[in-house]
C-alpha cells in the first residue's frame, strides 16, 4: 500500500469513527438504565429489561403524551408532504417547459424564499395565522409547512434536464391535452423526483422546530421535536441543577430522542439511492 492510499484510508477511518460513534452510542444507550450509563463503558450493552422499564416510564408519563406528540408529528408531516407535492410538481413542470411572463421572477423569488431566514417570516406568519384563526391548529401547521421552495427548485431542475422536449411535442401531436401531457407523460417519469421531494419535505417537516415553536402553544398540539424539548426541560433530565419528581431521566431522554429520529433513520436507509442519483442530476449543466 502506498503512502497516499494509507493516508486516504486513515482519513476515512477517522471519519467513520466520527460519524458512527454518536449514533451507535445512542442506540446502545437506550438499553441501559441510569446507573449503568455512568458506571459501565460507553459501548456496554444493557438489557431488554432496562429498556422495558425506560419505555414504561416514558409511555406512562402524562398518559402516553409522547405518543400524542408522535401522532401530531405524523399528521403535520404527512399533510405537509402531500400538500407540498401537489404544489411543487405542477409548478416545477411549467417553469421548466413553458415560457411565460414572470417566469424568471418566480424563479428568483423561489431562490430568495429558499434562503430567507425563518425568523423573518415567522412573526408575520404568526400574525397572519392569528388573523385567520389558524394558530394552534393542525391545518395551520400543515399549510405553513407545505410551502417548500426547495422542492420547486428540484422539480424545475429535474423537468428541465430529464424530460426530453420531443416527448412533450410528440404527446401533443398525438392529441394529448396540456394537462394529460403532465399527468400521463411527465408524472409517470417523475418517480425519482417525487421520492426526492417527498424525502426532503419529510425531513424538513418532521424535524421542523422553529415554526412549530412559534405557531403551537398548546401542549396537546406539540410536534415530537417540541415535545421532546419540553419533556427534557420540565424533567431536568439532562441538568444537574433542577430537581424533579417526574420519572423522566437520562435513559428516557435517550429513548425519546430515538423516537424522534427513528422515522427519519428508516427513511434515510430507504432513500439513499434516490438522493445519490437525483438531487443534482441537472445542477452540473452549463
Amino acid at each position, binding site marked *: 500500500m502506498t503512502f497516499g492510499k494509507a493516508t*486516504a484510508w486513515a*482519513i*476515512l477511518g477517522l*471519519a*467513520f469513527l466520527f*460519524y458512527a*460513534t*454518536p449514533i*451507535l452510542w*445512542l442506540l446502545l*444507550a437506550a438499553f441501559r438504565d441510569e446507573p449503568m*450509563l455512568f458506571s459501565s463503558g*460507553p*459501548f456496554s450493552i444493557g438489557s431488554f429489561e432496562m429498556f422495558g422499564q425506560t419505555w414504561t416510564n416514558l409511555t406512562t408519563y402524562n398518559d402516553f403524551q409522547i405518543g400524542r406528540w408522535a401522532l401530531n408529528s405524523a399528521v403535520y408531516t404527512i399533510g405537509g408532504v402531500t400538500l407540498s407535492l401537489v*404544489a411543487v410538481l405542477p*409548478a416545477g413542470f*411549467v*417553469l421548466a417547459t*413553458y415560457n*411565460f411572463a414572470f417566469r*424568471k421572477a*418566480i424563479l428568483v*423569488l423561489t431562490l*430568495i424564499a*429558499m*434562503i*430567507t*431566514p425563518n*425568523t*423573518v*417570516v*415567522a412573526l408575520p*406568519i404568526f*400574525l397572519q395565522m392569528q388573523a385567520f384563526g389558524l394558530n394552534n391548529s393542525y391545518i395551520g401547521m400543515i399549510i405553513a409547512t407545505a*410551502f417548500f*421552495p426547495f422542492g420547486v427548485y428540484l422539480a424545475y431542475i429535474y423537468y428541465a434536464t430529464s424530460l426530453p422536449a420531443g416527448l412533450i411535442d410528440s404527446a*401533443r*401531436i398525438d392529441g394529448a391535452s396540456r394537462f394529460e401531457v403532465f399527468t400521463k407523460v411527465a408524472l409517470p417519469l417523475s418517480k425519482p423526483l417525487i421520492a426526492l421531494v417527498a424525502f426532503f419535505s419529510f425531513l424538513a417537516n418532521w424535524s421542523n*422546530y422553529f415554526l412549530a415553536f*412559534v405557531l403551537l402553544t398548546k401542549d396537546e398540539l406539540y410536534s415530537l*421535536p417540541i415535545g*421532546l424539548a419540553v419533556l*427534557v*426541560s420540565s424533567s431536568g433530565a439532562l*441538568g444537574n*441543577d433542577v430537581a424533579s419528581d417526574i420519572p423522566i431521566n437520562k435513559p428516557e431522554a*435517550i429513548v425519546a*430522542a430515538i423516537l*424522534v429520529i427513528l422515522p*427519519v433513520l428508516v427513511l*434515510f*436507509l430507504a432513500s*439513499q439511492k434516490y*438522493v445519490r442519483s437525483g*438531487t*443534482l*442530476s441537472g*445542477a*452540473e449543466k*452549463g
Partner: protein
Amino acid sequence: MAKAKTPNSDPKKRRRDDRFFVLAMLSPYLALLMFFGVAPVAHALLLSFMDTIDWVFWGFTNYKFVLEDFRLTEAIMNVFSYVAIWLTMMVVGIAGLALLLDALPRRPAAILRTSFFLPGAITSSAIVILWLFLLDPAVSPYGGLFEALGWENRRQVVGHLGYPLVFALMAYLAYSGGWIVVIGGALKGISGEVIEAARVDGATGVQIATRIKLPMVWRSLALMAILSFANGIQMFVEPQLMALAGSTYSRPDWSVNQLAFQYAFNLGDFGASAAMSSMLLGVAIFISLCVVFGTRFYKMD
C-alpha cells in the same frame, strides 16, 4: 361540419390556453409563495418601520433601537464565528470525503457512505440532546479523550471547545452526510472516459481529484455553501436548547434569531423584531445573490 382541432390550429387560442394552463398549474404554489413568502417578508418590512404599539410610522427608529442593543454585536459575532467554522468544515470535509469515496471500490464506498449519511437523521431537538450527552465526560463515548485533555465535566468541555465549535460540530454531523451523498452522485456523473484519458496522460489520483473532478462539481459545492450559509445565519434551536442541560448553559440571546424571537415573543416589540429580521434577510439575500450570480451556477434559461 366542425373543423378538426389540433394543438397548433389557432396560435392565438393556443397562447391563451397556454397562459390558462400555466396559471392553473402554478396557482397552488403561487398561493403558498404569496402567503408564506412574499406577504410575510413585505409585512416584516412594513412592521420594521412602525411603532407597533401605537401603530404609527416612525421611520428607522426600530433599526436604530436594535442597532444600539449591545447584545446584537455579540450575537452577530457569535453567529459569524459559528458559520465560518461550520462552512469551512462543510466545504473541506464534504469535498474531501466525497472525493475519497469516489476513488474507492464500490462495496467499501457504499458502507462508508451509508455510515456518513445516517447521522443526518438526527436533527432538531434530538441532535442537541445527543450532543449534551456526547459532551458530558461521565457518559460520553469521547470520555477518555476528554479525560486525557484534563476536562472533567461538561462545563469544562463546552468551555474549552467554545459554543461556536460545539454548534458547528452538531451541524456538521447533522448535515454533512447528506451532502457527501449528493456530491458523490454528482461525481458519479463525470464521464469515465475523461478520467481514463487523464490517467493515460499520467495524472495521479490526487491530480485527477483536484484538477478534474473538483472543478466539475464546484457548482454543487457552491449550492451547498449558499444553502448552508442561509441555514447557518438563522440558527436558533441549538443555542436555545442548550438550556436543557441547566441554567449554566442557557444562552437565550446567543444568536440574532434568538434576539429577534425575544423581541417579538417575550417583549412584545414586533417592530424591533421585524427590524432585526429584516436586516438578517438583507444580509442573507445580498451574500447569497452575490455568490449565485457571481458563480452563475443557477442558470435559469
